[in-house]
């Protein structure tokens, strides 16, 4: 059934985030954060208060029980306001993973994550893509972890971290309490967010932290896919804000005695931006509607390829359309561009996703 309807629930999500965020975005503070002067985060506590951390949590566990396409639309809006916080990690690497394995067994943890009583971070997408897994050594039912976990966001505010370990040639999902994990290296992202590399050195864990008993490969691939899709949705929201900012500028800025938005060369660039955003958006939303389809990984790879190619391009076009003002730090357009670039750098490059679409020798 071909249907592009935005449901009432989705309208409610959009409206709710617009009402709560449209006036809160503080470009000055975001700029200062990007320079490393302040710690500034907004979005996470607000959506937590609104109950959205439980949006994919089943109704039996007091969540909203919504679908991934709803989450995708949420992420678009989240991205459009440059919100920041471990939402994707919590929902995908946490709640989704736990619900997929055994909702009943993990009901307490799922509930805690849904109300932000516990917060999960992860670097699963990067581990999966780079195939750099934590080695698990089993010594008489005592389990030791060894290896690096790179580029972990939101480590400070998290209580736990989800990681991929390798035991007897099988991938295992582990939810590890943060305590006693030492930071190996600290970095800053392009927009000033703290990122850490972690090192596990004979880190002893209890067996029950390995949350699944069998091979987690399929589940990990699904987490990778959903994380990627969520970041693509976030980038769509960022891109929509870029377009909105650009249109606002072009309809107010005068040159040669008229608004610069009247010039056809400029209008065509705007049309191209609009076309790009909309085609990528529909690709992502369609993938989000098909998470149980056997073609899901292919749909995700196509979404990622298009997001990376098109959305990166539109931000540069927007800088050109803004002229010198878009080149300044204070105007803040760079924050949107950098967010798109950060998302582009995560979750696998063109070559990785092309191979998922067209495996060699097949």
């Amino acid at each position, binding site marked *: 059934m071909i249907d592009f309807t935005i449901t009432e629930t989705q309208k409610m999500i959009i409206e709710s985030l617009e009402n709560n965020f449209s006036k809160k975005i503080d470009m000055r503070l975001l700029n200062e954060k990007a320079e490393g002067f302040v710690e500034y985060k907004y979005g996470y506590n607000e959506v937590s208060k609104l109950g959205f951390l439980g949006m994919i949590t089943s109704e039996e566990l007091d969540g909203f029980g919504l679908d991934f396409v709803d989450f995708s639309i949420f992420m678009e809006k989240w991205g459009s306001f440059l919100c920041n916080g471990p939402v994707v990690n919590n929902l995908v690497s946490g709640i989704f993973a736990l619900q997929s394995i055994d909702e009943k067994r993990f009901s307490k943890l799922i509930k805690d994550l849904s109300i932000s009583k516990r917060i999960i971070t992860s670097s699963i997408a990067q581990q999966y893509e780079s195939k750099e897994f934590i080695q698990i050594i089993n010594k008489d039912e005592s389990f030791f972890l060894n290896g690096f976990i790179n580029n972990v966001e939101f480590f400070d505010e998290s209580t736990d971290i989800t990681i991929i370990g390798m035991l007897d040639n099988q991938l295992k999902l582990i939810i590890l309490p943060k305590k006693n994990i030492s930071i190996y290296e600290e970095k800053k992202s392009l927009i000033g967010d703290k990122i850490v590399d972690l090192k596990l050195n004979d880190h002893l864990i209890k067996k029950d932290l390995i949350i699944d008993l069998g091979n987690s490969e399929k589940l990990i691939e699904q987490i990778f896919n959903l994380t990627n899709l969520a970041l693509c949705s976030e980038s769509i929201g960022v891109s929509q804000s870029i377009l909105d900012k650009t249109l606002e500028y072009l309809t107010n800025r005068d040159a040669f005695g008229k608004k610069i938005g009247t010039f056809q060369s400029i209008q065509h660039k705007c*049309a191209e931006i609009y076309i790009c955003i909309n085609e990528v958006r529909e690709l992502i939303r369609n993938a989000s509607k098909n998470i149980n389809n056997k073609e899901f990984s292919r749909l995700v790879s196509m979404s990622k390829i298009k997001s990376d190619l098109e959305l990166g391009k539109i931000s540069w076009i927007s800088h050109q359309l803004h002229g010198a003002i878009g080149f300044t730090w204070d105007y803040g357009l760079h924050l949107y561009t950098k967010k798109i670039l950060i998302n582009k750098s995560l979750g696998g490059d063109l070559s990785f996703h092309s191979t998922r679409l067209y495996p060699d020798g*097949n």
Partner: protein
Amino acid sequence: MFSSEDLSFKKELNSLIDKHLPEDWQEYPDERLDSHWELSKKIKNELAKKNWIAPSWPKEYGGLEEDFSKSIILSETMAYRMAPGNDRFGVRMIGPTLLKYGTEFQKKKFLNEITAGKSQWCQGYSEPNSGSDLASISTKGEYDEDSNTITINGTKVWTTLAHRSNRMFILVRTQPDSNRHKGLSLILLDMNDPGIKVNPIKNISGKSSFNEVVLKNVKVSAENVVGKLHEGWMIALDLLNFERSGIDYIGWGERCLDDLVDYCYKNDLIKENHVKNKLAILRSDLESAKLMTYKALWIKEQSDEIHMEPSVSKVLATETNINIHDFAFDLLNTKATFLNTKNKDSFAERVIKNRLFFVSGGILGGTTEIQKNIIAQRGLGLPR
């Protein structure tokens, strides 16, 4: 996206095409050739027997009142198979326009004719001095109140299939001193009427799929005016929106891409990173363009308003189709430029012929530049 019922329909449709299309059919339909035209009529006739020509139309006009997804499948599959017999002017342009604006007389007569596979329509919009600037047309229609007839004089050009058509919908200036969008009427013509002369124009690919149509004192009853006399502009624009979804380009592009992927696997090209990457990009482009095409058609089903989505989908579908053919050409190289008559490579031959033909995609039905104007001004609200 499609229901199991839709997919069964697609399977049946493919079986019907299999029965009538020669094995290993590699040609884009060229109705200039008698053999292709006969095949077109035959397939159209078979579709008509099953009421499949316009499955979403009301039963009283020969449809099945099916969900519009069947129409999408029909157009896309016919394009993918490169099968003749898909009457886009009748089914996708004037048909929906008559359903929306036509009189009962017009609906009964013309829609039933279309669904019976008995008519071929062509579009009389462009003129030698009016292409993208459609509102500047000068073909005159003189209305005579006593006889309730209109006498048409002028020349239309780039008229695809005029040489095979028995019907034309034509935009004419019926108010003598009117300017631009005012005083225009959309009229339905019988191509066998006296005074109509069709002159073929050979296109870039060596085919004569389009024509010049000269109209000299052609008389037509005012019963054949769609909507009100002198008020045809908005109807003519709405009709263009039916034209612009770009669904055919999706089918043609997908066929070329599928064949190209096969070619790359068979010739071990897939192991080359630049080939694999480009194929993945093109597949992603195609999937997103397809979704936008479906969305444009879906929106058209939901609302009577004129939207910009058909402009978006037309730009995407035509450009994606061209990009796919360009890459195929790059890989096939001299196979596509030095056509070997002894060891014919039908895929290479098709790629170059179609690539040349598809130059028209970004021009007909409103150029890509016009579509971008529409998106920027009507859609994004940028000032004129």
